[in-house]
Structures are given as C-alpha cells and as structure tokens.
C-alpha cells in the first residue's frame, strides 16, 4: 500500500480554508497563493460519477453538447485517484455503500462528495427497504445534496456552481471532517457492515501524517477496528492463465 512516510508534507499553513470569522494566517504572498489555489480548485473539478441509480441518466446531457459542463471546468475522470468530486447518483444499497466508501477513501484530498437524487438524502422511494442506506452523510461527509427525483441537468449544474462558490470561498472543507470525526463515521459503517468492517486505506495513518487528527478521530469504534484489523495479503502476481485441473 501507499508508503505514507515517504511523502513530504507540504506546509500549507494558510491553505486551510478559513472559516467565517477565523483569522487568516500568513503574509501577503501566501494569501495570494491561497486565493490562486482556491480559484483553480473551483475552476477545475474532475468528477468520478458513481452511477448507482436512475439519476445517472441526467448526467450525459449535462456533460455533452446541450449543457456542456466542460465550460465550467468540470470533466469526467475514470479513477478515484484522479478525481476531486464523487458524484453519487441514486440509492446506495448496503453492498454498494462498501464500494462507495472504498472509492471515497482512495481519492486525494481536497475531495468533495455530491449526493444527487432524493435517495441519497433520505432513502427516497427506498425508505422502507432493508437493503438500502438511507442518509449518505452518516457514512461519509457530503458537501452538497441535489434533491429531486431525478434532478434535471440544470439543477445538477446549479448544484455544481454552488459547490464552486463554496470551494472558492473556502467553505467546502467537509473532507477534513472525515479525518477529524473518523470514529463517528466508522461507527455508522460498523453498524451497517458488522464489526469486522475494514478498508485498505489507513485513514488514521493519513490523518496522523497530514496533521488532521481531531479529538474524535480515535474512539471506541477505531479501537474495534484495530482489534479486528487483518493486514491485507499482497496480491499474487503471476503470468499466464493457470486453471484448475489443467496445471
């Protein structure tokens, strides 16, 4: 897995988005630099669409010639490593949610989650389903919900513009919340998946490395995780097809 110790930590003192009322640190140069990075982040968003439900059908028109998201700097990417936005378009079943969390944890920060459709807000028409996760923001920090069943491409683009405004103003920093309150998120995940739930990404290690450790990062649920954690076996690498019975 990733060797966290080898990555130099870039001191981005002022880059921490200033909350309303919070004093901005650093001199003029670092303030200009932070403004520039915030602007570029808002104008260049690579999105990974995790198309789980019917909301996915509204994305092609939003991306292609009719509404053309690329003029706002939004373009689709195909792997979580490259993406900034995780779009979840529709209901998340419990099995799907595991994949969504794996995907989310593999993305590089700053990362943003957008929940599209009513199903991600409160379960929508699957409210009574035993197999569906109801509120997405119990399992990962959601930056923006676009409600509707399904929202039109105009609504999707309006939502994107709002996210752009938030990033520009430094308000979209929910990804820090996942590190700072990991225990709470992990607890909700364990409630759903059982206490043996683990992901390949070492979230606590990352939080420690990047200085994002909060007072709620560690708790009873992370202790449970430590107890049940089994190191992932390295994948066997071999060439050629070796099928059973044929040797």
């Amino acid at each position, binding site marked *: 897995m*990733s060797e966290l110790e080898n990555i130099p930590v870039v001191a981005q003192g002022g880059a921490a988005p200033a909350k309303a009322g919070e004093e901005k640190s650093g001199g003029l140069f670092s303030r200009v630099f932070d403004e520039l990075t915030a602007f570029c982040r808002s104008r260049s968003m690579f999105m990974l669409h995790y198309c789980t439900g019917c909301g996915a059908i509204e994305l092609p028109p939003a991306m292609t010639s009719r509404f053309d998201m690329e003029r706002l700097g939004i373009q689709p990417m*195909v792997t979580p490593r490259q993406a900034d936005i995780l779009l979840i378009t529709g209901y998340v079943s419990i099995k799907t949610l595991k994949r969504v969390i794996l995907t989310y944890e593999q993305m590089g920060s700053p990362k943003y989650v957008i929940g599209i459709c009513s199903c991600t807000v409160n379960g929508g028409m699957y409210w009574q389903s035993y197999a569906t996760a109801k509120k997405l923001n119990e399992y990962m920090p959601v930056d923006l919900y676009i409600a509707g069943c399904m929202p039109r491409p105009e609504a999707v683009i309006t939502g994107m513009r709002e996210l752009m405004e938030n990033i520009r103003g430094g308000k979209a920093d929910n990804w820090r919340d996942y590190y700072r309150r990991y225990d709470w998120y992990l607890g909700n995940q364990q409630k759903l998946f059982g206490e043996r739930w683990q992901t390949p990404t070492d979230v606590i290690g990352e939080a420690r490395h990047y200085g994002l450790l909060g007072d709620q990062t560690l708790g009873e649920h992370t202790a449970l995780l430590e107890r049940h954690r089994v190191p992932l076996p390295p994948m066997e690498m071999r060439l050629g097809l070796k099928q059973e019975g044929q040797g």
Partner: protein
Amino acid sequence: MNWTGLLVELTLMPLVAFVVGLGLVLMMRRIAARIQRRVGPPLLQPLYDVVKLYSKETQISHGLMHDIGIVMAVGGYIAAETMLPVPGMNGIADKAGLLTLAYVTMIPSLGLALGVGQCANPNGSIGIARALTAMLAYDIPLVLVIFGVAWHFGSNNLVDIAAAQQQAGIAGWGAVQMPLLALAGLFALHAMLGKQPFEIYVAPAEIATGPMVEMGGKYLGGLFVMQCFQLYTAGVLYVTMFLGGGENWASFLLKVFAVVAIPVSLAYVFPRYRTEDLLRLVWKWPVLLGLAGIWLAMR
C-alpha cells in the same frame, strides 16, 4: 557560445515549450468540443488543471520508483525541448542531432513504465504494455522518416536542416521535396501522440486510462505537464523537418498549431483500434510510404 547565454536558453526553451504546450492542449480540447458541438473549456483551463493538481493536499505515493518514473517522464521531454531549435534559440540543438532526439523522446515512455510498474495496478500494467507496443509500432516509420530527411539534407542536425529549408524558400521545404515522407511522418506523429484511432493505451472506458490509473495529485499534474511537452515536441519536430522550421515566432507558432491540429481534428471522429490492428496498420502503410519516400529521396 558563452555559458550564460546557453544557460538562459536552456532555461527558457522548456518554459516556452510549456506555455505553447498549454495552448496546444487548449486547442485540442476546443477542437474536440467543437466537433461534439459543445462550447469547450475557457482559455486558461489547462493551467487551472495543472495548478489544481499540484495543490492537492494528500498525495498517494506507491514508492520511490513511482516518484522517479514521473520525474523521468517529464525530464525526458524537458531534455528534448533543449534540442529543438526555435526562432532565436538553438540551445544544444546543433550538438544533438535527430538521432539523439529520437532516443530522448523514448525516455518518457520508459520512465512511465517504471513508475506504473510499482503501482501494481493491473490496468496500469496493461496500459504500459500497450504504450510500449505502440512505441514499437510508430518508431519504425519515424526512424525511416528521420533517415530519409537526414539523407535528403545531408545532415542530421536540426539547425542545418531548418537553415537549408529557409534558404531555399517554400519550394525547398521538406514537405514539397519529399511529400511521401511528409505523409508517413504525419501518420507516425499521429500514432506518437496516441490520439484516438491509436489511443490503445489510454482507453478510459476499457482499462481506466491505463498508465494514469493510479496517478493523482502531483503525479497526474506531472503527466498533464508531460502532455503539453509531448504535443509541443511532436509539432516542432515535424515543422523543423518538413515545414521550414521557424523564421520568426508568428509563422513558427502558426505552423506548429496547424500541424498539431491535423491529428487532433481527425482523432475525435474515430473510435479506437485494437493493439494488433494498430501494429498491422502502422507497420504497413506509413512504412511503405516511408520506404517509397526514401527511394525517391535517394534516387
């Protein structure tokens, strides 16, 4: 040549290449948008992307080779830029010939192969295997074209080649003198850029962008910078060999943008070949054209 002047040129040439490359990337994305009847990205979009990728706060490294691979990929192209003469700046172009350039432009692919190898992602390995296969495909017509051009001008020095064409005027341009080789060169250039009919190693829908699959943050940023250099290198190499090089910046940039626009415009109306089809196609037609062109040039 004095050392200070050389040092300034060696610094300026990659910087100019990067800025022009950003323009080329923008042109590529705008052409794609126009073909798909979209508006396309704003003027500074390629710059926003690069700045954003470098300002990511968590970086996922897979080890030392992963880091070095990206450095090799970008560094190979930075070395190549100092060997491509531009108007007013020759850098080390008159000391390094076409052959050195052909070698140096292979370094990025090899660096990428090393870096991707450590990511241990199967999509990445498939992608890099395909990229090296594609390199095997387009290098044969490319070497034929380089040989033909060097034979025709009696030199493998890009500065001499550009000067000879500028002296003789348009009638002395490589493209007029050796039309078959120019055509084969354009074909090889298209394959070298890895654009759509030959896009076997990126293939987003099939192997999730192949070599780029595990790249995020500054790693992907490095690859975006590499793409700028790649478009620039291909365009300038072609312009210097066949279109008289650069007399002044205006005509030089016009030629470079025009040359890159040809494969890019063709790219977005085509789907993708399979690997073996690519090899069959590239080893057949541009190689035949190139051999015929060499025969004409040597006659």
